[in-house]
């Protein structure tokens, strides 16, 4: 257990330097003259194509053809290829053999995006697919380097809901087509080059912790060739149980077609600032007007921050008005009481993210290899926060004989995090400090005097212990003590690799054997220095997590024409998967000597635990794909799994799928310029899902040992020896259409999926001796619609082009049933606010308290019922206050291209869904938010908020017979502190629109491109640039953690607005 901070990793930084030197090498200017080349562009039919784009490859030089398809272009010296593009036709590269060049454009045979990667890594023409797959090209992701790959999908894929936890390096949650599972994982399976990878995330409670991020964020976006999102069980039926929530299939770049050797490099630097911070009031400082006589205009006086002074323990801002008067404060007696409007903003540094990638590739006819290194170096907005990710990848392939070929890849990832911000309602989260805060506090003071050394300090801390100096000793660390003295550091070393052999038995039969693994160890340590508010004698916690999943599979593929016009592709395959997940924890709750975070220095007996989870699944599967005349395709799949986590009698389960695709424009011969392509598709699938390990047999739970004696307790959950697999059934129908010479396209899908027999811990009355029991029960239904629209509204001869892409998804979710006798399943609860699943209602209901109001029928119906103090009172029954799922989501991408310039904007919208913001709730209670200025002083002598409401009228028996209207005046502090009793006013419509991305890319003219690189682009990039929302004070795109408990917010780390630039060179 070494507590030293990782500081010696800077050698990787030289990588960035090398690239920078490459980029600033003296530019080789050519002495040769440009030449003029002209020509004509026609379709294969001989029809001239007007408005086709003709550019000199690798330069920004280009033009458009005229009405007769003719063009003239000035070709810079050293260039010898023209690139001609026209929508609906395949892009042509034409060698410049002389001053006149004729170009014939073949029709784009494959409509839509052509080929996509589907289950088992099988590449297929999209036109033959009977289900929806949406593919995102890697260059789109690389243009906007994101710390988290999952965030790159925001706004780009229809029907996908993504939330993130705030701090860079934190986790993001992705759910496709709504939640399927009541209590299990609802996120899709991630697959890299055919190998499933881990995407687990630490499950943080809302009461503190560190968000170490979801594991898929280890993948470097610039290494991605494409991402296919398989949206439902239909698409993923062949990946087995875990893909019931869909699959995200990542294909990395390879060295194929890199004849003669190529180098690609890019570097980007972006800067982060908080996108949104709460609007604070800046007129009243810390203290109180209540609880002590004579404090009508606010009392505060600091002695020790423990209650020794007047309200000096009180972390609310109901104190004296800040007008420069002298008041005893934490850093000295009789100091001016003045506002510091930017105190919270000043806490944050400007973050810096530096991404550098270099890749080398080469290929011959019989082999190819690619080596890539990526470096992501982040210094966060949070003081002291550093994040580093190094990716090194090698992949290659070789044809050994004409029949036998082999390929493989290995990807090493080293990730380090230092001083990540804490989360949740915890003294380790600085954002909690800023909700419970004295608005007079000067952040520079807190920064300069966070250790207890300054003689001017009046507080009574024993400085010999090296403790902190803070404004409130009862509840709060100095935020700089939290950030810079308390610490956390984590390191993950990960290898993802595979090897495969491919053998061609005959012209129609091929075989594949593949094995791959994803292995990592993650070492996480959290240190609490002496005098930390949670651990006054210091503490440290260490978790070592090891995960490995190994998959070995084979696949036999037979393909051939079984009759004229009838093509069959059949696959038979099998897979065995072994997962190991090991967690070792050490908790030391007190240090012997300050500052040393090692087991030897434990001041108390360390609490240790280790857990191993192991699971194995064997599978056999087969598929058949029958295509008639290239326009009608029928797919059938079947898979049987044997899982170790289910009882022997139930551990084998089979699931089938069937789908069909019909290109009616070809079949009926109705293809035209208006409708060149049209396809209908339909599919049905069923997927089984197993349990997590060890749910069949009751075991005893280990409890804290007593003086060396091991002790155990009956567990709180009752196991079930008769579990059956869960079952998800899904169907979808859709259409893919192209219009107007393929200048516009529409993909539309409607779907419905139902998950039954869910394996869930059903809550039971604890009077049974158990809190829950594992059962097969419950049913969730999701149905919805997805639309993808794309089009090119404008193409002009001058070279201007405008493209639009719209993604839309609407999902309706219903919890059809829970376990028998169970009226509600509480997914999580914070501050009495429950997130629940209730039969007949959508998953993720927010259940909390409202105010008592006059019931219907009374003339005053709906008015607040006030108590004798004029304050509203909690209605003792909990009510549904909202639901966290958005009504619909949409992303709009618009791109403007003019010659070598391209401007792209991505907007992302979530409509509806509700959010309980405890930042608003407690921020109002604590008097720090702007709206709490209300009623602070009506006049100097009589502050107050005028409240209109009703009071009950009772008869002699105490029965309420009616209501009288009343008007009360309530002290502002009493009014806002009363918020605590009900959630109603802190639940908001979570609708928002974000300007998610802006990129402005300039293709550098060839003559300025150094060395032999044919292309170089410079981009200005911005991410999360603007937010439109009605939710006050916070960014509604937020969550506590990665679990199913969503729709709650407290003390979120501010999301970042990121602006910077990127330079890329390509062969």
């Amino acid at each position: 257990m070494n507590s030293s901070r990782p500081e010696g990793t800077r050698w990787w930084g030289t990588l960035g330097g090398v690239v920078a030197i490459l980029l600033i090498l003296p530019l080789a200017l050519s002495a040769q003259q440009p030449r003029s080349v002209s020509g004509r562009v026609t379709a294969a039919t001989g029809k001239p194509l007007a408005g086709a784009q003709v550019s000199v490859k690798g330069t920004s030089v280009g033009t458009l053809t005229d009405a007769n398809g003719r063009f003239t272009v000035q070709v810079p010296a050293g260039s010898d290829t023209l690139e001609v593009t026209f929508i609906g036709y395949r892009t042509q590269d034409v060698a410049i053999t002389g001053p006149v060049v004729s170009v014939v454009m073949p029709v784009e045979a494959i409509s839509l995006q052509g080929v996509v990667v589907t289950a088992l890594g099988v590449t297929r023409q999209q036109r033959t697919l009977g289900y929806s797959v949406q593919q995102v090209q890697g260059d789109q992701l690389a243009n906007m380097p994101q710390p988290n790959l999952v965030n790159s999908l925001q706004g780009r894929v229809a029907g996908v809901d993504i939330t993130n936890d705030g701090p860079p390096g934190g986790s993001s949650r992705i759910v496709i087509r709504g939640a399927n599972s009541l209590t299990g994982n609802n996120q899709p399976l991630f697959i890299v080059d055919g190998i499933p990878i881990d995407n687990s995330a630490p499950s943080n409670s809302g009461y503190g912790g560190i968000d170490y991020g979801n594991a898929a964020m280890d993948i470097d976006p610039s290494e991605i060739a494409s991402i296919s999102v398989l949206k439902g069980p239909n698409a993923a039926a062949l990946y087995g149980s875990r893909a019931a929530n869909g699959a995200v299939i990542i294909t990395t770049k390879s060295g194929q077609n890199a004849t003669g050797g190529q180098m690609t490099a890019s570097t980007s630097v972006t800067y982060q600032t908080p996108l949104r911070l709460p609007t604070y009031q800046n007129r009243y400082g810390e203290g109180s007007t209540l609880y002590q006589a004579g404090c009508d205009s606010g009392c505060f006086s600091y002695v020790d921050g423990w209650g020794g002074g007047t309200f000096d323990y009180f972390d609310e801002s109901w104190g004296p008005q800040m007008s420069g008067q002298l008041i005893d404060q934490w850093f000295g007696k009789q100091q001016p009481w003045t506002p510091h409007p930017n105190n919270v903003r000043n806490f944050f540094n400007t973050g810096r993210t530096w991404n550098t990638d270099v890749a080398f590739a080469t290929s011959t006819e019989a082999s190819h290899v690619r080596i890539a290194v990526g470096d992501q170096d982040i210094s966060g907005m949070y003081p002291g926060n550093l994040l580093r990710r190094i990716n090194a990848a090698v992949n290659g392939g070789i044809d050994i004989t004409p029949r036998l070929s082999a390929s493989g890849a290995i990807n090493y990832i080293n990730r380090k995090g230092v001083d990540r911000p804490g989360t949740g309602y915890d003294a380790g989260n600085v954002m909690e400090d800023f909700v419970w805060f004295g608005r007079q506090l000067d952040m520079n003071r807190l920064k300069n005097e966070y250790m207890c050394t300054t003689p001017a300090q009046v507080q009574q801390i024993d400085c010999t212990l090296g403790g902190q100096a803070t404004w409130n000793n009862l509840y709060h660390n100095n935020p700089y003590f939290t950030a810079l003295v308390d610490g956390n550091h984590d390191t993950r070393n990960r290898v993802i690799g595979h090897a495969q052999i491919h053998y061609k038995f005959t012209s129609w039969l091929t075989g594949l054997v593949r094995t791959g693994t994803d292995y990592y160890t993650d070492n996480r340590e959290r240190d609490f220095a002496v005098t930390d508010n949670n651990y006054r004698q210091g503490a440290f916690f260490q978790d070592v997590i090891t995960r490995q999943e190994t998959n070995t599979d084979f696949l036999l593929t037979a393909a051939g024409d079984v009759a004229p016009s009838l093509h069959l592709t059949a696959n038979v395959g099998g897979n065995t998967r072994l997962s190991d997940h090991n967690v070792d924890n050490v908790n030391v709750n007190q240090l012997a000597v300050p500052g040393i975070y090692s087991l030897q220095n434990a001041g108390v007996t360390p609490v240790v635990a280790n857990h191993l989870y192991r699971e194995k699944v064997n599978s056999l599967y087969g598929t058949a794909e029958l295509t008639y005349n290239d326009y009608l395709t029928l797919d059938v799949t079947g898979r049987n799994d044997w899982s170790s986590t289910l009882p022997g009698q139930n551990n084998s389960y089979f699931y089938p799928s069937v789908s069909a695709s019909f290109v009616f424009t070809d079949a009926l011969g109705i293809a035209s310029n208006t409708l060149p392509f049209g396809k209908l598709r339909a599919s049905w699938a069923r997927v089984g899902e197993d349990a997590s390990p060890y749910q069949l047999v009751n075991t005893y739970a280990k409890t804290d040992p007593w003086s060396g004696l091991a002790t155990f307790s009956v567990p709180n959950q009752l196991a079930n020896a008769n579990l059956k697999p869960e079952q998800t059934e899904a169907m979808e129908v859709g259409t893919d259409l192209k219009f107007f010479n393929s200048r516009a396209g529409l993909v539309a899908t409607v779907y419905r999926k139902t998950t039954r027999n869910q394996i869930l811990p059903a809550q039971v009355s604890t009077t049974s001796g158990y809190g829950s029991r594992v059962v097969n029960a419950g049913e969730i239904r999701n149905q919805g619609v997805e639309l993808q629209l794309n089009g090119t509204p404008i193409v002009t001869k001058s070279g201007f082009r405008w493209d639009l892409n719209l993604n839309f998804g609407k999902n309706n979710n219903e919890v059809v049933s829970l376990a028998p006798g169970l009226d509600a399943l509480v997914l999580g609860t914070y501050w009495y606010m429950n997130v629940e699943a209730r039969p007949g209602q959508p998953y993720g209901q927010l259940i909390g308290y409202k105010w008592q109001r006059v019931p219907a029928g009374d003339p005053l119906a709906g008015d607040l019922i006030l108590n004798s103090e004029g304050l509203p009172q909690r209605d003792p029954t909990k009510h549904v206050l909202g639901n966290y799922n958005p009504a619909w989501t949409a992303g709009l991408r618009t791109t403007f291209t003019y010659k070598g310039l391209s401007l792209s904007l991505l907007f992302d919208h979530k409509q509806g869904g509700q959010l309980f913001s405890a930042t608003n709730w407690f921020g109002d209670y604590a008097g720090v938010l702007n709206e709490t200025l209300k009623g602070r002083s009506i006049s100097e002598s009589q502050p107050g908020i005028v409240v209109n409401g009703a009071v009950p009228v009772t008869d002699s028996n105490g029965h309420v017979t009616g209501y009288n209207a009343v008007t009360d005046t309530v002290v502002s502090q009493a009014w806002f502190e009363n918020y605590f009793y009900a959630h109603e006013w802190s639940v908001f419509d979570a609708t928002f629109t974000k300007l998610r991305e802006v990129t402005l890319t300039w293709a550098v003219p060839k003559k300025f491109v150094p060395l032999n690189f044919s292309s170089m682009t410079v981009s200005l990039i911005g991410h999360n640039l603007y937010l439109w929302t009605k939710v006050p004070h916070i960014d509604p795109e937020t969550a506590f953690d990665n679990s199913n408990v969503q729709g709650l917010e407290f003390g979120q780390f501010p999301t970042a607005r990121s602006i910077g630039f990127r330079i890329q060179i390509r062969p």
Partner: protein
Amino acid sequence: MTIKRASSGFRGLVAVSILALLMGACDKGLTSLNKNPNDPENVPVANILPNAIRSGVNQLMGVGWQLRLTGLWPQLYAEIQYPDEDRYIVRPSAIQAYWDGLYVNSLEDFQRIITKSGAAGGNPNYAAIATIMKSWEFASASDVWGDMPYTDALEGDSTGNFKPAYTPQQDIFNDILTKLAGVSSMMSSDPLDAVDASSDLIYGGDLSKWVKFANSLRLRYAMQIVNADPTKAEQEFTAAWSDPGGVIMSNDDNAEFRYLPSYPNDNPWHEDWRSRDDYAMSATLIDTLKSLNDPRLTYYAEPTDSGPTYQGMPNGIPNDAPKLKAVSRIGNYWRANPNGTFVIMGASEVMFLAAEAAERGWIAGNPATYYQDAIRLDMTKYKATAGSYTPYASDADIATYLAQPRIQYAGGQAGLDQIHLQMWISFFGNANEAYATWRRSGIPQLAIAANNKQDAIPVRLPYADLEQSLNHDNWQAAVTAQGLTDGFSTPVWWDKPPTP
């Protein structure tokens, strides 16, 4: 395609299919792979008992139950931050946690010990200990909740009853009295059945002391029901008093739980004190101790940092409350001491109960003598166990104290009031009993807390929220049967006005 090529493809197909069958359907290791490598399927009762005891004591003597609830309403302690409970607002999540914590973390474990020990080859002495602890916990819980799932409870794993009916409090107390009377006959003196001393965190395996504890609990619960069922109360009390197993007469026999010096087995009050400063002395208790010149004051309370040497916080924090610096916190003996001791039941309580029983004419002896012995035992109860701590008072100090006119036993109703006031004082650190004694005796007379949100000091706790949905019909029946309106104001069954 040629025949030859087709056959080579066919051979490959067959080979791989065989491989597939080997790794797929025929994997016999699958089931054994799911055997939990982390946690045992069976453990000896000696390894279950310690945690069950610790968990139950932590629950019923710890911070939430005592400092945040049952010690606030009889005004032993006071909240100085966020005084919700002191103003009679109880967080529903806290009630849920108390309810769940008792049933799941402790009672179910005692139930398991009873089941395992009662089976063939089991050790009945563990069953006897578990029965005593279970009785104490159920009685303490029923003191605040009245009717509770009892008879049918804790059977989720045996009968599959996940919705147990609520047992009326009268039946709960009657059954507890019966069970406690029967423990000595459960016990085995076979040396092979000796209780592992290290697993018995209360008496170190001394069964004779467990019998005394059981008989003493019978005295407590017999007296508890005196106003509701006087005949039964007297019967049960006299039977227990004369039981050959005896009752706790000496502090050496006290049923007490002594914590270890360090986390996670340190005293929960101490653990809380390390990071929080939410609780202090109630003004009601401090003022009483001061007016009686009570030597326990300096042990119960810390001197203030400013203002009067000892000053309590009036419950509910009135608007003219003293500053926090001028309020006495709970004594360092209780808060700063990691291995502080909680007395579940001690000799002083037995003597107070004897004094009351003698005053009522149930047992022989002079009530004044029992009363003075009780005070003496209480003031010396930490002598044996508190390590470096001296007893509250020397013999001379005790004599001076007893000689005060207000302390001298008056007899009659005045005598009973004196006994009950002294019990209230002595239950510092065992607030559940202070709360119960105050409810059945009305002593001391308490003023309602400042800024209160109820019309009177609560006399019970609402049921846990989740019972409404998870055990609805039985919960509804219990609410109806007891006539509950708000969960705070309806007395439990034994809480009746004193019989004349």
